[in-house]
């Protein structure tokens, strides 16, 4: 991981110049006061480079570097549905120099036989949300979410999602649970593959993120029926929310920043305010929105409460199997 970024850094002159500027300005500030942060901060990402979590983390890191004046080293530790990285973060010294990107899975994995518990972390703020969207092929007989549910009440329909135990499988499960529809979950290897299956007409419906869905929608390759969020999505203006379509359900792939439990108070406060500033900055918001997600910011308290509520909700939905 060390070698390639270094080569890439030399390559992308613009980017590295920016980083250097940020580093040098921060060096002065830190050295005099002895206050946090004095050295580089490592941001652990639970997914491989290139995905949505990685992109959001890197975009935030760029902003944080300018605000905190130290380098933020993004480190990918993929594996075991993200639990490898979560366990790693929990085991680090709570000094603020190791933080991480925390995905929605933190509220789910504990219910799926993984050793992951939200109680082991300090949550510092939510930074993004990619709401779920349920779509059907363009030649599908189902024009609305109600059509789909009604049809599925009499015969089972197949719904593609991004993987076994994923948030989009939970969304389909939630819809089936609340409506009595028979939805057969067909887990694929990632959201893009699930959306491809609906474009190719291999499944009756698919749940995916707004990112992969809105791109295909813009090209008229599929028909989104509802967005699992409390308001409509800018790239899917004509698509009703699930509540508008008659099913009051919200499912989203959210992400935030967390740290090992029990950060010192000053460190915690510095990080919280830096994350707020970074997550609401114009360039971060536009990067996130270009990926099709929404830049949603929640402060540490709201986010902690939200994570716990989600943990409880998924406990009911997924059961402790």
């Amino acid at each position, binding site marked *: *991981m*060390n*070698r*390639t*970024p270094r*080569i*890439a*850094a030399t*390559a*992308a002159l*613009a*980017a*590295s110049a*920016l980083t250097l500027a940020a580093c040098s300005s921060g060096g002065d500030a830190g050295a005099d006061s002895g206050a946090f942060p004095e050295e580089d901060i490592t941001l652990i990402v639970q997914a491989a*480079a*290139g*995905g949505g979590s*990685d*992109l959001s983390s*890197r975009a935030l890191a760029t902003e944080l570097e300018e605000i905190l004046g130290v380098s933020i080293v*993004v*480190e*990918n*530790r*993929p*594996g*075991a*549905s993200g*639990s*490898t990285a979560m*366990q790693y973060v929990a085991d680090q010294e709570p000094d603020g120099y190791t933080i991480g990107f925390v995905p929605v899975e933190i509220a789910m994995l504990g219910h*799926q036989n*993984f*050793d992951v518990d939200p109680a082991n972390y300090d949550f510092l703020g939510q930074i993004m949300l990619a709401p779920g969207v349920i779509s059907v092929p363009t030649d599908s007989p189902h024009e609305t979410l109600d059509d789909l549910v009604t049809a599925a009440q009499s015969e089972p329909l*197949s719904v593609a999602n991004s*993987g*076994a135990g994923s948030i989009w499988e939970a969304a389909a499960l939630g819809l089936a649970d609340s409506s009595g529809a028979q939805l*057969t979950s*067909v*887990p*694929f*290897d990632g959201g*893009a*593959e699930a*959306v*491809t*299956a609906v*474009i*190719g007409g*291999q*499944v009756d419906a698919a749940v995916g993120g707004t*990112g992969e869905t809105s*791109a*295909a929608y*813009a*090209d*008229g*390759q599929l028909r989104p029926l509802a967005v699992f969020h409390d308001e409509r999505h800018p790239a899917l203006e004509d698509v009703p929310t699930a509540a508008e379509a008659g099913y009051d359900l919200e499912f989203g792939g959210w992400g935030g920043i967390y740290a090992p439990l029990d950060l010192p108070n000053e460190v915690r406060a510095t990080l919280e305010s830096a994350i707020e500033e970074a997550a609401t900055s114009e360039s971060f918001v536009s990067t996130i929105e*270009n*990926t099709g997600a929404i830049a949603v910011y929640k402060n540490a308290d709201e986010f902690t409460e939200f994570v716990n509520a989600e943990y409880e909700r998924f406990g009911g939905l997924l059961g402790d199997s």
Partner: protein
Amino acid sequence: MSAFAEGLNALLDPTVAVCLLVGLLIGTLVGMFPGVTGSMAVALAAGFTLTLEPVQGLAVLLTIYVGANYGDRIPAILVNTPGTPAAIATTLDGYPLAKQGKGGLALVSSAMVTTGGILLSVVVFIFAARPVASIALEFGPAEMFALVVFGLTVMISISSRSLLKGLLAGIAGLAIATIGRDPITGDERFVFGLNDLNSGLPFIAVIIGLFGIAELFDQLLTHHPGTAQIVSSLGRWWPTRAEYKQMARPFALSSVLGTVVGAVPAAGGDIAGLIGWDRAKRMSKHPEKFGKGSLEGLTAADTASSATLGGSLTTTMALGVPGDSVMAVMLGSMLIWGLQPGPSMFVQSPELVASIAGIMIIATVLSLGISLVRSQGMVKILDLPRHYIWVGILLFCIVGTYTTSNNMYTVWVMLLSGVVGVIMKRTGFPPGPVVLGLLLGPLAESNLRRALLIDGPASLVTQPIAASLLLLAAFSLAMPLIRRARAARRDGAPPQPIEVDRT
């Protein structure tokens, strides 16, 4: 045609030239570095290219993609370690060629057919993107399953020395592929409470271990100076006229095959290389030379795996659906730039399509140039004392594998696979089928189960593409057996048992 000119014109910008060179440098380096794959390099570079203009950014990313596809052949040929999974099939004939002192010939031929494969597939991208892409979209779970089963029949060919040992190795590969979470229900399988095993064995670590590290351990354990075989001279560089002729047929076959496999979402150069090699062996006049340093085999493997580039580019740009893991990353970057790959891109921004094709062609030609010049420099490295070379390779493999996850666990898996690899080597079990099982097993299982969930068993027979691929697979399995029986009858001898060991 003006859009075409406009798109190519955008490439004349000097900053684009700089971007191309940077991409080329990164691509070649990461390709040579075992463990560091093209998709990892593109993903990391994507973080930096977001600040560039789209054409400049694409110039960096696409050139890394192309460059890595040349670099990965070098360790495959010289030290039996595929630089990226796309070069697995390269090792089958590339390394034997190098051991025979024909490393130079292998490197040059590989670079040339790789160039041809990419260029032909880019031509398909330019002229037939939309029809090819719509065929690719037909590949649902049932079709993917059938394609993968067809791929699994390659096992018969790679186990040519002993069919029984080959098949046993293949089954072992399929068996270890089941470690991890169940792809459909998410239940744990053979995890034994070890959290890292939840995502299964890391594929890249296993291939580096079984091929490269096993070779290295084997050499270290061989004390007789006479028996230790290391590539010490590269021999001549250019193929003769007769060799060019030999290469023509597998080249033609594999470039078509590679483009098609590349266009299928989620099937990439690793699978294409193996299928290409297998098909060429079955159609060759000298199948017995395959796996022992056949130039035809090398040609087929490298052409097929490189032709997937144009194929997956086609699917990605014409459908907005990623054709392979590198393209998935690229797609993400393009969305951030505000570009929307998909059917409308060909109508709304043909100049961008022209730019992309232009970048691919320039990158390919430059990569060929660099490969030919650089290959000559390889000789100097091989002049170093052997122990330095092996230590260097071991370090490279450890660092490269570690970067895939930043976790020592992957390095342990690699070293352990190396030990297993040595034992297999000494007992005559080929590593190829294990890798094939590990690569295709999860794809076969998950797609079969998806197909069954969606339509039940009927879809495997009623879908024309799936059914014909399955028939083809059955045919591929039966043919060698029938041929063997016939040959035996002609000779008037009783049919030979299958597990004939010709080692």
